[in-house]
């Protein structure tokens, strides 16, 4: 492989010029393909490293100036040059948490329906419809959030919640079409298909014999699910939720459209807020180069770290849980 020069071996039985050409082509082709595909793979790996390095480099003015205190500082004021990420990290954490709290049980229920309950002719189409939810471009979901969901929340749902649960800080304040509640609902819709499809795959790996065993012992369907399917699926479920988390914290466009984009921490879900990703999307175009832009890129670095961690954890857990 390594020492070959193309021509000198042509001797004896290889004198046939056609064979010699084939041999030459084989040598070049074999190497060419190997090298080309290797370079492509190398580029993909290098890209990850490059993205991390370049972002840390571009964010350096802010990292250098604010250090780790950036994440606990709660003022974001371009005029005075003070930048703190806390309101956005809070917004990211709260909106993602709410989305996962709602989406996870619903996703598990849908996965149970798809693997245990649905008539077989419905399973594939319904699974596909749920997955198509993930194919809706986020800007369209955001448009829907602004013009359809927002007015509904501001005029109907939020006044209703306030009248019943207004004593809770979460549901206090003035109802408004945009804010944390709207963003959380949009995120719920986005993570639901992801969690559902992974959960469904995990449920499908439950050995049929185990399920039949439980049923034969007299368990009802729910008892069988509770005692056989869910315990075996636990690692996979955690992975599915992590995958959803990665999606939720990284979503920028739809959230920036509906959250109101304010650097504030309010207990009320009706109030405007911001998330790290949404803040980058809404603030970056107006940020002038310097500490302001660097602070936004610092936010991007934080976002990158967390979503990468969530995704890596998810893949490791899911792979571990399903490949047994």
């Amino acid at each position, binding site marked *: 492989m390594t020492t070959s020069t193309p021509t000198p071996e042509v001797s004896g039985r290889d004198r046939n010029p056609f064979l010699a050409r084939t041999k030459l082509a084989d040598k070049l082709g074999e190497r060419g*393909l190997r090298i080309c595909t290797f370079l492509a793979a190398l580029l993909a790996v290098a890209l990850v490293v490059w993205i991390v390095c370049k972002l840390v480099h571009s964010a350096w003015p802010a990292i250098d100036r604010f250090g780790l205190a950036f994440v606990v500082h709660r003022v974001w004021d371009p005029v005075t040059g003070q930048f703190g990420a806390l309101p956005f990290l809070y917004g990211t954490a709260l909106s993602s948490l709410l989305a996962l709290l709602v989406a996870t049980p619903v996703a598990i229920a849908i996965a149970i329906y798809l693997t245990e309950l649905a008539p077989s002719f419905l399973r594939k189409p319904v699974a596909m419809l749920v997955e198509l939810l993930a194919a809706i471009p986020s800007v369209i979901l955001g448009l829907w959030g602004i013009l359809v969901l927002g007015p509904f929340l501001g005029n109907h749902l939020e006044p209703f919640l306030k009248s019943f649960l207004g004593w809770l800080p979460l549901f206090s304040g003035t109802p408004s079409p945009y804010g944390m509640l709207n963003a959380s609902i949009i995120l719920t819709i986005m993570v639901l298909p992801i969690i559902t499809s992974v959960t469904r795959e995990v449920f499908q790996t439950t050995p049929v014999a185990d399920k039949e065993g439980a049923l034969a012992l007299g368990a009802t369907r729910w008892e069988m699910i509770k005692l056989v399917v869910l315990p075996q699926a636990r690692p996979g479920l955690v992975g599915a939720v992590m995958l959803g988390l990665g999606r939720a914290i990284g979503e920028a466009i739809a959230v920036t459209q509906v959250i109101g984009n304010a650097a504030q921490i309010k207990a009320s879900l009706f109030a405007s807020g911001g998330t790290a990703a949404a803040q980058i999307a809404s603030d970056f175009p107006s940020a002038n180069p310097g500490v302001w832009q660097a602070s936004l890129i610092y936010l*991007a670095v934080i976002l990158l770290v967390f979503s990468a961690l969530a995704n890596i954890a998810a893949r490791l857990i899911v792979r571990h849980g399903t490949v047994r």
Partner: protein
Amino acid sequence: MATAPPEANVLLRKTAGTRRRRAVSRAVDVVCTVAALAAVAVLLLVIASVAVKGAPALSLRLLTENPKVSPFGGNTGGIANSIVGSVILVVIASVIAVPMGVMVAIYTTEFAPPKVATGIRFALDILTGIPTIVIGVFIFSVLVVGAHQSGWAGAIALAIVELPVVARSDQEVLALVPRALHEAGVALGLKRWRIVLRVILPTAAGGLITGAVLGVARVAGETAPLIFTTSVFSNLGLTTNPSAALPNIPVTILSLSESPSPKDHAQAWAAALVLIVFVLLLSVTARAVHERSRAKLRG
């Protein structure tokens, strides 16, 4: 049951306990069915909103004319320039990402030692997990800072989003190609590159096309990689040169959605209708083809 002697019946008798357990199980059935219905209902609700609000503004004029700013505010023309720009961006992105994705997949399934292959899969996992807005910021700091926004920058950002989608899908497909075909090639004395090009790729062609279609469907609606790289397009006319910022559908929808004018909202819905039909059609076809090619490969 009624005819059986009472002592044989004692174990089968429905006690209050069994009745309760069955009721719980039934209730769970209902809850799960409702959850599935709700998810499908949300999908239909969003699609129906886009269709109902987008259809009135959808016309041949909208699709074939460039925007015109009316003196009373709002756009009275069409979105043709955005459609053209989006097509150019997605085509450039796919021309970069699809062959690269196929090559990465070939390397990991055919050439790479197992540990290296795991490393590459890991890198692709991370790449998939990077929020698209972060990729937008990255391309901004690499290609836009010190230069200006351009179609190239936007397309390359989209290519980075598309690459792991295509590569992972292709890896899965190549892994499904029967080992026997590979061995048949070896037995005929073929070198590996000929086996890859003449046996494996043709066998997997359907699946590879699916991967490409999935990639296109994924990036056609992406906004986040574009807002810092190809969003400032001052001219209302047609731009086809990727060295300048290209108008495109997602960014157009975003800016129209944030306008206070209802006329702009109508246009945003119409543009959204065009985009959603395109993306959903691609996703559905990709899935259908995927099922078929998988079934074929499995034999």
